[in-house]
């Protein structure tokens, strides 16, 4: 059983990291524990630093930004923002099973988001500032509510997707967006990967105002799903549907009760019993990704215009599907059945100057090497 600390303040968290660094003891930073299987395995004797008690939400006076402490469940933050008609444009699956436990710190550390990224951009685009604790016991703050002048890489964006390997995220300053009032979605199906790719390009080009634009695919057939928002959502969705028909999609329909459709897309980004690969690719390579998925009997959901696909597949198929992906695509294994952890390399990144730069960054932020060691690319 690992030893654990649950700091109640930022200074306690920083002190816990400094104490661990003094002993050379690795630290595993834990939020809602919904993604602990992502990335490489931390050393078994690591001290677990739980952010659970760093849970606070403060909406700023402008009503358009907020500070969220790292241990706050994202679902609670969204409920708070929704009372003022606002939202954080981050919509990952909140966890496996029924417990919506994912915290803002964990979501940020893994850069996990969902269909809304089509309109609002990646998670890093929602960040205005960040507060982090480093392994030397210091606390760094950046953002518009501090007097820190940025000069160098943006700290908030660098910590987004860093898997806790640079330090512990304590709080994040985010921009809020108005919750779209009415929404409607157009959907259509295809039985050919090329046809789906061509239709996706046509829809993305004709409708730059979409809220979300996704693909779903399984065993040689699938479809596109496009959401629009605003008072005239249904009318707009019908024009999107017309574009889908012009693109050769079949079974084209418009739905105004679309919440369930998008919940299914988000659910496809996690897998409790199969492996889950997240693939980044050129948007024009969507058909190649779908072929690679079919070769390993993988189920796909993804962002049709962003070049992000989530492939759920059986563990023995991972190597062949990775090999079938286009050269320029990059695949990370996220969820893995517990029996496969350790046997599957999650990152698959080649040595090179890019990895050297990342090691330099790690060394600069965490010279003691105690923050989530071994979890990230290149055994960082």
């Amino acid at each position, binding site marked *: 059983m690992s030893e654990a600390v649950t700091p109640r303040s930022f200074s306690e968290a920083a002190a816990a990291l400094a104490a661990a660094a003094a002993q050379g003891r690795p630290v595993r930073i834990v939020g809602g524990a919904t993604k602990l299987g992502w990335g490489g395995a931390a050393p078994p004797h690591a001290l677990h630093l739980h952010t659970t008690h760093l849970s606070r939400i403060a909406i700023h006076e402008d009503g358009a930004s907020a500070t969220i402490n790292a241990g706050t469940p994202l679902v609670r933050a969204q409920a708070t923002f929704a009372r003022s008609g606002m939202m954080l444009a981050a919509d990952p699956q909140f966890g496996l099973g029924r417990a919506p436990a994912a915290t803002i710190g964990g979501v940020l550390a893994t850069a996990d988001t969902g269909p809304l990224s089509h309109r609002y951009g990646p998670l*890093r685009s929602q960040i205005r500032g960040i507060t982090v604790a480093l392994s030397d016991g210091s606390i760094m703050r950046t953002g518009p509510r501090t007097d820190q002048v940025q000069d160098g890489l943006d700290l908030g964006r660098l910590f987004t997707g860093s898997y806790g390997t640079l330090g512990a995220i304590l709080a994040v300053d985010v921009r809020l967006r108005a919750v779209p009032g009415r929404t409607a979605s157009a959907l259509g199906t295809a039985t050919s990967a090329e046809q789906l790719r061509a239709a996706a390009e046509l829809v993305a080009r004709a409708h*730059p105002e979409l809220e979300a634009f996704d693909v779903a695919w399984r065993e040689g057939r699938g479809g596109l799903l496009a959401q629009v928002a605003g008072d005239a959502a249904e009318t707009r969705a019908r024009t999107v549907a017309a574009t889908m028909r012009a693109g050769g999609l079949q079974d084209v329909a418009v739905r105004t009760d679309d919440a369930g459709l998008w919940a299914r897309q988000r659910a496809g980004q996690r897998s409790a019993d199969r492996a889950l690969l997240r693939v980044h690719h050129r948007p024009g390579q969507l058909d190649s990704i779908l072929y690679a998925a079919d070769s390993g009997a993988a189920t796909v959901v993804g962002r049709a215009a962003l070049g992000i696909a989530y492939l759920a597949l059986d563990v023995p198929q991972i190597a062949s599907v990775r090999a079938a992906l286009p050269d320029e695509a990059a695949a*990370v294994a996220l969820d893995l059945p517990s029996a496969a952890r350790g046997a599957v390399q999650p990152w698959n990144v080649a040595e090179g100057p890019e990895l050297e730069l990342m090691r330099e960054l790690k060394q600069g932020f965490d010279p003691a090497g105690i923050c989530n060691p071994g979890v990230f690319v290149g055994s960082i």
Partner: protein
Amino acid sequence: MEAGAELIARARLICGEQHVLTNPTVLSTYRSDGIRRDGPLPRAAILPGSASEVASVVKACAESQLRYVVRGAGTSRSGAALPNGDAMLIVLTRMRRVIRMAGAELTVEAGVPLASLPPTPYGAWLDPHEVLGTVGGHIAETGDVGNVVALGLVRPDGTHLHLHSGFPGYDIAGAFPGSRGRAGIAVTVTLRAVPLARATPESQAVPQP
């Protein structure tokens, strides 16, 4: 040979004789930025024509331990485009090729003027109100740019890296905007078009056939 003179000779071999400027009259154009017109005169202005030439010049500067300042169109209001002391100036305005435009992604060399970005049906590449300056300069100076998806980056030792946002590892390309040259020189930039603002009820009216 003195280090500065030796670097100028090396830069001429790398970039071509005519792309390394040392004549004080010609150099005086590089004393100005978005605010000042009377900044210090640089020792030389070196105008590389490609990413690999930038990498070679930076490597030569590193080996000679000579300071340099990187500049686009010189429209910065932060002072970042002006040399200090007798620093060399690396000017990226010859690097103005559009490398690739595929769907909602555009890859350009850093010296492409903002006003020359090709139109896109997918939204906007960068803030459409910003029309002065180059893509590289705008990104280096503006922290609020969130749609950089890949970067060609020349580091202070002259290493040329290719960084993709979203690929495994730290999101260095995403964290680069606003770094003001501290993280290296962006030599190529890939942008993803930012969708248009949500249509207003008036603009949602669908033309009748």
